[in-house]
């Protein structure tokens, strides 16, 4: 079934009788060519591109709960490619390009909205660092603008630029950045993958890997053993827990990241704004809620919830930056579970176990990577070679000394 405005009108006039399930609820087959563990955005995107681009026909996605129940369903929906380092920037720009055609590729409106992101500048040193970053973006084909204070004030007049502890002196803007509807991304990929024959199996928890002679044969699950020639693990947040079942220790800690949404408001904030002197970033959803977040809680956690100090820290930043939000109310907060890696950058790589592949370590930034992570992980699973944009995302970069450390804080995950 193809979605379109015409179809919506037709169904509206005929009592919505013609809508069909967006995806099936198949029972697992005994074996697949490729099994993806994790039905989040990344896992579903991987399956989608495996089927669509790499011609893989016999693929299953196994999801412990309901698809999109992890970080894909609880993030602040920002998409951007404003990275500095050569290991990162081309990958995120590739992802940005995939976002730009996502809806046509999946025939599903994921509400990709390129309303721009602005990272605020408060010191001369910050401006120099952002100039370096903006230039790196331009040099890898992305868009970037360095905004003067006056340009910024014209664009976002409600920012507290002057009566501030850390006055705002400008910003680095990526006009093509923006947001996408997180659930819509999950559902678009799921529906697209299902239409192409991928089995999406919900409520199917992987409880172990069957590994013999250094080669993976399949996975043990709550629905029994499922054989696989290749297994791709894409369970960010739970990477440590899942990969430990294959006997692997990872350069990752699991941390809690909270996010917040306010009650619905008439249009207030045009794009995404990131404070440069505190932990706060914000956008406004199409429904009107201010969607915002800040720093991770900072201690190892699998509890999927956070604590009050971070809530206060985030709102202190918010009020300092835009004191006009004060009389809006917090509607909901939630805690996600993120893989914080030792250099703040991701891993897409084979493991030492034949047939077992890993995609994870996305820290707090996995959502924007969804299309490219899916595409490049599919590329790796299908061809056994890393896609050209992920050649730096290898396990061995740590021991060899080629970390991709955007913040320059070293091997302390909670500082990234």
């Amino acid at each position: 079934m193809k979605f379109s405005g015409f179809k919506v009108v037709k169904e509206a006039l005929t009592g919505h009788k013609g809508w069909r399930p967006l995806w099936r609820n198949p029972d697992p087959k005994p074996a697949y060519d490729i099994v993806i563990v994790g039905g989040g955005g990344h896992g579903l995107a991987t399956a989608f591109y495996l089927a669509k681009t790499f011609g893989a026909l016999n693929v299953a996605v196994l999801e412990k709960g309901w698809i999109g129940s992890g970080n894909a369903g609880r993030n602040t929906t920002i998409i951007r490619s404003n990275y500095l380092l050569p290991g990162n920037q081309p990958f995120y720009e590739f992802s940005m390009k995939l976002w730009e055609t996502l809806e046509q590729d999946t025939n599903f409106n994921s509400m990709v909205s390129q309303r721009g992101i602005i990272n605020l500048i408060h010191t001369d040193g910050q401006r120099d660092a952002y100039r370096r970053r903006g230039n790196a973006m331009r040099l890898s084909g992305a868009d970037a603008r360095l905004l003067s204070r006056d340009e910024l004030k014209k664009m976002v007049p409600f920012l507290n630029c002057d009566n501030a502890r850390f006055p705002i002196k400008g910003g680095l803007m990526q006009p093509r950045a923006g947001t996408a509807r997180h659930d819509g991304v999950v559902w678009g990929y799921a529906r697209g993958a299902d239409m192409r024959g991928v089995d999406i199996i919900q409520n199917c928890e992987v409880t172990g890997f069957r590994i013999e002679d250094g080669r993976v044969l399949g996975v043990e699950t709550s629905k029994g053993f499922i054989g696989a020639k290749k297994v791709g693990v894409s369970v960010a947040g739970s990477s440590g827990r899942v990969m430990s079942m294959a006997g692997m220790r990872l350069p990752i800690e699991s941390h809690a990241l909270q996010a917040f949404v306010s009650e619905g408001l008439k249009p207030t904030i045009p794009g995404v704004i990131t404070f440069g002197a505190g932990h706060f970033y914000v956008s406004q959803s199409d429904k009107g809620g201010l969607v915002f977040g800040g720093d991770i809680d900072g201690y190892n956690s699998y509890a999927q919830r956070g604590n009050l100090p971070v809530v206060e820290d985030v709102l202190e930043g918010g009020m300092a930056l835009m004191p006009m939000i004060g009389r809006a109310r917090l509607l909901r907060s939630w805690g996600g579970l993120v893989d914080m890696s030792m250099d703040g950058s991701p891993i897409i790589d084979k493991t030492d176990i034949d047939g077992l592949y890993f995609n994870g370590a996305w820290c707090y930034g996995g959502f924007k990577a969804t299309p490219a992570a899916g595409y490049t992980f599919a590329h790796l699973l299908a061809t056994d070679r890393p896609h050209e944009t992920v050649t730096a995302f290898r396990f061995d970069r740590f021991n060899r000394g080629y970390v991709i450390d955007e913040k320059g804080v070293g091997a302390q995950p909670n500082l990234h």
Partner: protein
Amino acid sequence: MLIPHPLLGLRDSQEFTYFGDASLMWRPDPEAPEAEAAFCEYVFLRDNPAGVHRELWFHEQGDRSWLVVTRDTTTHEILGAELASDVKGAAQ
């Protein structure tokens, strides 16, 4: 959270700075033949358990002691806390 400081009793976790797995106390022997590999493992790899975790907290806005806190990462329940220097001293 409240951290049960072995000397000071329950203290607001806001007074503390979190560092990471308590294994970071056990720096490898720099003279050992495979020192570089051992250091790579020490610096980069973590057990990252979903469950009981021994971890380092620094009482930065307190008595400036480093603590080894035993905490369940799935519930945040704290099972105990010791002074890191005692832990190290006992092991040596």
